[in-house]
């Protein structure tokens, strides 16, 4: 049932989850929103397992974020200090955890969009009255992100296949090798983008200020139910936090 949600409903759900996440600064409410975002993401059929696997590769970034937040916005009980410099405080850690939760909520709710293909996303934006040139630009950008990451991975292998044993290089030499990965990735991406834009124009893209669409999105009963409920929940959560809590 959730898997066939209209892409416009999904856009609204993402907005209704990420807006409170940005506005609210309460670890308990954020945890609840986090749980909801995971549930919704699972219901819509996104590949959460893979997202978590990728995130777990960069867990140390999250640790650094918590630490930085803790150092710069410390408050409350001191937990750890080195030579007079307070590193960890109870309040700081809570702030740090909040920050990471917020980031996770945004990342996970965004995975809901990956369950629609980019043609649907373009059409969803168009039917939200976004000009078609802008929605196409957005969709090309979405399509290029995964392409870019696989391009980087492949180039890294290709450069090693020249017979360069990365493992044996000293730290600074290894860093300077990454410079060589930069050119082909950049140039191939620009070339591909240019190729696609030429192919699009050569098929009459932007010949007229309007275009028709073969794909038409239609809301179903479930969409009419979920959209108002999402708005209602998001607004009441924000109101509750600002006026009653």
């Amino acid at each position, binding site marked *: 049932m959730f898997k066939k949600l209209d892409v416009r409903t999904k856009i609204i759900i993402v907005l209704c989850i990420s807006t409170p996440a940005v506005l609210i600064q309460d670890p308990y409410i954020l945890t609840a929103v986090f749980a909801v975002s995971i549930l919704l993401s699972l219901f819509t059929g996104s590949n959460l397992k893979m997202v978590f696997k990728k995130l777990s590769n960069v867990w140390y970034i999250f640790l650094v974020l918590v630490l930085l937040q803790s150092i710069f916005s410390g408050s409350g009980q001191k937990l750890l200090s080195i030579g007079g410099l307070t590193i960890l405080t109870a309040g700081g850690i809570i702030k740090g955890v909040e920050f990471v939760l917020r980031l996770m909520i945004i990342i996970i709710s965004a995975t809901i969009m990956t369950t629609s293909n980019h043609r649907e996303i373009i059409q969803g934006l168009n039917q939200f009255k976004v000009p078609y040139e802008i929605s196409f630009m957005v969709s090309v950008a979405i399509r290029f992100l995964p392409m870019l990451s696989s391009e980087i991975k492949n180039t890294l292998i*290709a450069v090693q*296949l020249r017979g360069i044993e990365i*493992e*044996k290089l000293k730290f600074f030499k290894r860093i300077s090798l990454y410079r*060589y990965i930069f050119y*082909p990735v950049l140039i191939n991406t620009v*070339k591909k983008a240019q190729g696609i834009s030429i192919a699009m124009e050569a098929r009459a893209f932007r010949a007229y200020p309007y275009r028709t669409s073969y794909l038409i999105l239609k809301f179903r009963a479930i969409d009419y139910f979920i959209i108002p409920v999402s708005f209602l929940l998001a607004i009441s959560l924000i109101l509750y936090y600002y006026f009653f809590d």
Partner: protein
Amino acid sequence: MSSLSGGLLGFIELKNVDFSYEGGMPVFENISLVFSGTGCTAITGPNGSGKTTLGKLMIGIIEPLNGSVLLEGKNLKNITPGQTGQKIGYLFQNPDLQLFTLNVRDELSFAGRFMGRSDGSIESEVDEMLRIFQLSRLQDRIPFNLSRGERQRLALACLIINSPGYLILDEPTTGLDSTGEKMLLDLLRSQIKNGTGLCVISHDNDFIKALGCRIIRIDKGKIVDKNV
């Protein structure tokens, strides 16, 4: 035939390999192949038959789902791409993926420099490659701005300068006109004569015949024909 049917230790060996791309249909199911370290083997077949995929498996750009790929008896999984690259030169279908610098000369020399070779010994080899591949007048140009055929030649020169014992070339004739093709043919023949093993992935039957390769024909992920 004997070198194909297993038993003998080959240079590159695929053992009961299964492969499919993420979320896609299986490309290979339980294929086994042995490539000897000398002479010429051609992998041919229609578009979409899995030729390029097979080449990528042989060099370890992609890993088999099941089964193993061995290089000189060692599982590719346990060898770094750097080590593989010292033994095998791999020409990508799209040469843009293996040009990394902003100058033709640098392109030929940078890998050697990274591996700690002295400038003097590299420069004379670079000059030789520029001569063999008729790239001398282009030596200060930016590789990405060269024509398709010129980039193809440069990519190939960058492999040969490493003097690997084995070459895997994916569609090497793409973008070459008949003069370029003839030059490539002569070069590969002399490489084979000097004991370099060669595996050509190509749908260009005339080219394969001219090289006199042993042919492995694949279709829809199955080996349909193996000729000596």
